[in-house]
């Protein structure tokens, strides 16, 4: 069984959507509706106090645990930190993968996310972040497809 961690800045948008695509909560073939996005657990819900927490989004059809995490701007060092802690604690890192979803985020998502989560002006920020998410949806599908574990799962499926 593998553990996959999708991480972004706040753990509210891109990591939630990407992990939802991985888990099959959202379709890979069609862009979801705003209502479908809002039904996702953690979507546009996490605040500063939740950053750093690993939240289990679900278990995929192959038994892999899929987590999300908001780690602010430490996404680039996260893999190294995990490798070092794993080495000290005697954890096998071969079954763990972390994927930075920030590369799929567009300006509208950043702006809407900041207004909704940081400024807590949800009525203004949420429509922007939803629009941005729908515009960037193809990129999130691509991130899931690039994930080697996901590829392996697809191969197993065939």
């Amino acid at each position, binding site marked *: 069984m593998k553990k996959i961690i999708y991480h972004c800045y706040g753990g509210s948008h891109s990591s939630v959507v990407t992990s939802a695509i991985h888990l099959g909560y959202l379709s890979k073939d069609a862009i979801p509706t705003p209502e479908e996005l809002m039904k996702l657990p953690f979507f546009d819900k996490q605040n500063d106090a939740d950053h*750093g927490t690993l939240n289990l989004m679900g278990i995929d059809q192959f038994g892999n*645990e899929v987590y999300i*995490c908001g*780690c*602010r701007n430490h996404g680039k060092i*996260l893999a190294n*930190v*995990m490798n070092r802690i794993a080495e000290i*604690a005697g954890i096998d890192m071969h079954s763990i993968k972390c994927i930075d979803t920030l590369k799929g985020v567009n300006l509208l998502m950043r702006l809407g996310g900041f207004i909704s989560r940081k400024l807590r002006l949800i009525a203004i920020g949420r429509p922007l972040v939803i629009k941005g998410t729908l515009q960037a949806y193809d990129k999130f599908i691509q991130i899931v497809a690039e994930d080697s574990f996901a590829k392996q799962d697809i191969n197993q499926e065939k």
Partner: protein
Amino acid sequence: MKIVYYSTEKRISKIMAFIHLGKLRLNNVNNLERIIDGFKKSKYDKILYEPLYVGTDCRNDQVYIMVVDKQKDIMFKFISDFLKMNSKNPQEFIFINADKSVGLLVRIGIFFAIDLGLKSWGYHFIRKGIDNFSMCSLTSSPG
């Protein structure tokens, strides 16, 4: 048990870790020069949240030093959750804030000795700082 001394500046946590390990005694700092000389700046000073092993104490606990930044609260939460996720007990790791424990004199001493190269002044301040300040609550060094 893994004891991690963390600070925003690597040398601060190193001083704490060395006191813990008994390499730098509170009442005998004659070996200070030798230790401080090993504190030259390196590219590794800025590697964040990756504990560096410095020794094992008399209780067989491993002692590490770690550089942190302003986001330490979220990173500690992440490390704790990461350990739990892998069925490890986070309490196996004790994180100690070295920044809170080291006095101003030690900081000034490090600045003088390493950054300005004024070693005699720097060592003097560091000695004073270590003598005047009970820095390490977990010191397990014998004697």
